C-alpha cells in the first residue's frame, strides 16, 4: 500500500487538530482554551485546503482565527478573571454520563458514515473552491440567504452593543 502525499498531509493536520481540540475542553483557564482553539482553527484550515476548499480555508483563518478569537481574548481580558474565578468542574458522575452520551453519538455517526458512499470521488472542475466558483453560487443559487446573512450580521452588531453596554 503506497502512502500518498494527501494521506501524509491529512495526518499531519488531523492529529494536532484533535489534540488541540481536546486541549480546549481540558484546560481550566479560558486563555489556554482560546489559544488551543486558535491552533485548532489553523489545523482545520489545512484540512480544508486538502478538500480543495481554498476560499473557505482562507476565510477560516481570516474570520475564525482572526476576528472571532480576538473577540474571545478581548472578552477574557475585559472580564479580568483571576485564579479565584477558575470554575470548579461538576462531579465525576456527570462527566461520565456526558462521555457516555458522546460515545453513543459517535457510534450513531459511525453507522451513518458506513452507509455513506464515500469512496466515489467526483472529478472536480478546474475552478472548484475558488473565489470565482463559490461567488457565482453565492450570488445566484444562494442570493436570498446571502442577503439575509447581511441582515443577521447587522442585528448581531446592534444586539451585541445593546446587551453589553451598561447605559445607552
Amino acid at each position: 500500500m503506497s502512502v500518498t502525499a494527501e494521506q501524509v498531509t491529512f495526518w499531519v493536520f488531523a492529529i494536532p487538530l484533535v489534540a488541540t481540540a481536546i486541549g480546549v475542553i481540558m484546560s481550566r483557564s479560558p486563555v489556554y482554551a482560546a489559544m488551543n482553539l486558535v491552533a485548532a482553527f489553523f489545523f482545520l484550515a489545512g484540512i480544508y485546503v486538502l478538500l480543495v476548499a481554498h476560499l473557505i480555508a482562507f476565510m477560516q483563518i481570516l474570520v475564525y482565527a482572526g476576528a472571532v478569537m480576538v473577540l474571545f481574548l478581548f472578552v477574557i481580558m475585559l472580564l479580568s478573571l483571576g485564579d479565584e474565578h477558575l470554575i470548579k468542574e461538576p462531579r465525576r458522575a456527570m462527566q461520565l454520563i456526558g462521555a457516555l452520551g458522546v460515545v453513543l453519538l459517535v457510534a450513531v455517526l459511525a453507522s451513518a458514515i458506513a452507509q455513506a458512499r464515500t469512496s466515489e470521488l467526483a472529478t472536480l472542475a478546474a475552478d472548484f473552491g475558488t473565489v470565482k466558483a463559490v461567488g457565482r453560487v453565492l450570488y445566484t443559487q444562494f442570493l436570498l440567504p446571502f442577503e439575509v446573512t447581511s441582515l443577521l450580521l447587522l442585528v448581531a452588531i446592534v444586539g451585541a452593543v445593546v446587551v453589553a453596554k451598561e447605559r445607552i
Partner: protein
Amino acid sequence: MPVEYYLWLASILFGIGLLGVLTKRNALILMMSVELMLNAANLTFLAFARRSGDVAGHAIAFFVIAVAAAEAAVGLAVVIAIYRSRGAINVDEVRVLSE
C-alpha cells in the same frame, strides 16, 4: 483518498465539542466548544462538497462561518452582561428562569 477520513475527523471533533458543552461550566469555554461543533459541521459540508464536486457545500460553509461570528458576538455580549450583574460566568449559577 476517500472522504470517509474527513467524516471521521468531523465526528470526532463534534464529539469533543459536545463533551465540552456537557461537562464544562465556564461560559467562555462552553462557547468555544460550540465553535468546535460548528467547525465539525463545516468540515462535513466541505467533505461532501468534495465527494460530489458541488460548490454549494462551500456556500453553506460560508453561511455557517457568518452565523458563528454573529453567535460569538452576541454570546460574548451576554457573558459580559451576566458578569456585570452577577460577578461570575459559571453557567450553573445562572438560573434566573428556573427559580
